């Protein structure tokens, strides 16, 4: 379970550019729930993920992941609980390292790293099996550098990496936004499969209203650093993209613009 209690985040505090990124967000996510997060640029989506990941430390409020209060823990210290896939395919893996080395890194996420060989026989075999499940033929390229893979391939491998070690929450930060439509579809299907098979508690930020409704079992909308919509169950099932855009427009107090058309896909 994840509990965010009255989270306040302020950037550039005390400067003329001071910006309140999150203004008292409280959110409880049940174990095994798949929650999608939408909102316009600057709504606080990424900050919300940052607060969970440890990249952003709130000025007020508390963060609980699993049984632990992680409010003040830096990213590395809570990595054992948090698995992530970034928007930028280059951000979530080491381009200079091989596929199997990246997997070895992920295999030890949040654990002590000793002097044992990172790529022993047993691990190599295990990693190969996991990558073979992707059906992308990458199992024959285990020693290739990650940099040689396409964006979609990297995101697919990143998803495998995310589940190499256990986690209390999986954070997906618009992880299909940088991909072409076909690959985005593939990565989303893969996401659904992995999340389902491992019953992972998942938070997915997306720009696409379609994605937000098609996947997961709960959707929240952020605006101006606050949660303005929170739907699940039947209410959510009866919602379509039009309704969502309608609500989106109402909270923004504006008419439809390009941005909204873009996210409606």
């Amino acid at each position, binding site marked *: 379970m994840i509990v965010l209690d009255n989270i306040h985040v302020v950037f550039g505090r005390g400067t003329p550019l001071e910006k309140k990124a999150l203004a008292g967000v409280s959110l409880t996510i049940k174990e095994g729930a798949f929650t999608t997060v939408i909102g316009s640029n600057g709504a606080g989506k990424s900050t919300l993920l940052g607060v969970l990941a440890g990249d952003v430390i709130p000025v007020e409020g508390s963060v609980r992941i699993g049984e632990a209060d992680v409010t003040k823990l*830096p*990213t590395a210290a809570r990595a054992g609980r*948090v698995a992530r896939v970034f928007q930028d395919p280059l951000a979530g893996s080491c381009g200079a390292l091989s596929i199997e080395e990246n997997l070895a890194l992920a295999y*030890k996420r949040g654990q002590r*790293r000793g002097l044992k060989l*990172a790529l022993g026989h047993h691990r190599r075999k295990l990693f190969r099996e996991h990558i073979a499940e992707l059906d992308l033929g990458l199992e024959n390229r285990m020693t290739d550098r990650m940099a040689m893979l396409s964006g979609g391939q990297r995101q697919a491998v990143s998803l495998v990496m995310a589940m190499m070690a256990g986690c209390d929450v999986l954070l997906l930060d618009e992880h299909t936004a940088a991909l072409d439509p076909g690959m985005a579809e593939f990565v989303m299907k893969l996401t659904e499969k992995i999340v389902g098979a491992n019953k992972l508690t998942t938070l997915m930020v997306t720009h696409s209203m379609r994605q937000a409704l098609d996947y997961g079992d709960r959707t929240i909308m952020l605006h101006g650093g606050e949660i303005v919509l929170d739907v699940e169950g039947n209410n959510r099932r009866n919602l379509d993209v039009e309704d969502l855009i309608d609500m989106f427009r109402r909270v923004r107090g504006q008419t439809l613009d390009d941005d909204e058309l873009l996210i409606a896909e």
Partner: protein
Amino acid sequence: MSQIALWGAVELGLVYAFVALGVYLAFRVLDFPDLTVDGTFPLGAAVTAVLIMAGVNPWFAAAVSMLAGALAGLVTAALNVRFKILNLLASILTMIALFSVNLRVMGRPNVALLSVDTMLTPFYGNGLRDFMVRPLFLLVLAIVALIVVWRYLESDAGLAMRATGANARMARAQGINTDRQIYLGIALSNALVALGGALFAQTNGFADVTSGVGTIVVGLAAVIIGETLFGTRRILIALIGCVVGSIVYRIAIQLALSSDSLGLQASDLNLVTAVLVTFALVLPRLKRGVLSS
């Protein structure tokens, strides 16, 4: 080039192989341009020379040199990590400070190691000429150092260090304390360089405060020559490249300086080095430029 000159070049190349391994750790693994080594090399020499002159066991003296080098590295890392000073500048500050420290350690600009036992003493006079014993001895040590560094970089802990240099944000997301990796890596790097200094003092019979000038360029030259000759694909190959690159560099310099037709003299060493490194750095780019056009 005479046979003795050739062996001499190999010997010096092997001394600087330790510098190359250290530079590889900082520059290539951690992506940390560390100029501290210009100060740690003479520091290693100074500590060893002073300790040996005080009657300390030469092996133990070399170990203390490594410790001193590691400490110097920690200072640079702290300036960068703790006080957020740009890595390059942080290392320059330590390097400058070390010049004074080295003078303090020795009490004068140089110390001669004449008629005292060194690590090499037991190996002399076993049928081999002295000028051959030194490079062979160094080769064995360099291989040991290479294997230790290689095995470390292939471990989980070493992989964490490589990830820190390759993608720090990703490393943190994987639970790696990147600050700690920088401390560790720069300390390790400078320990190796100081060991190079210690071996320099023991094989050449003196420690000099000015012997550090250009250490970083020489180390980098070895790394780059190694990469050009062997490629960078695998860690072991890259490390072997560092050692061989260091030797090749010394032989190339020796050839350039001893060739009458070029008209170079010993004092042109730094200029030749700079030109050589520049070429090694620019060459891959030129090659790419030709290919793409």
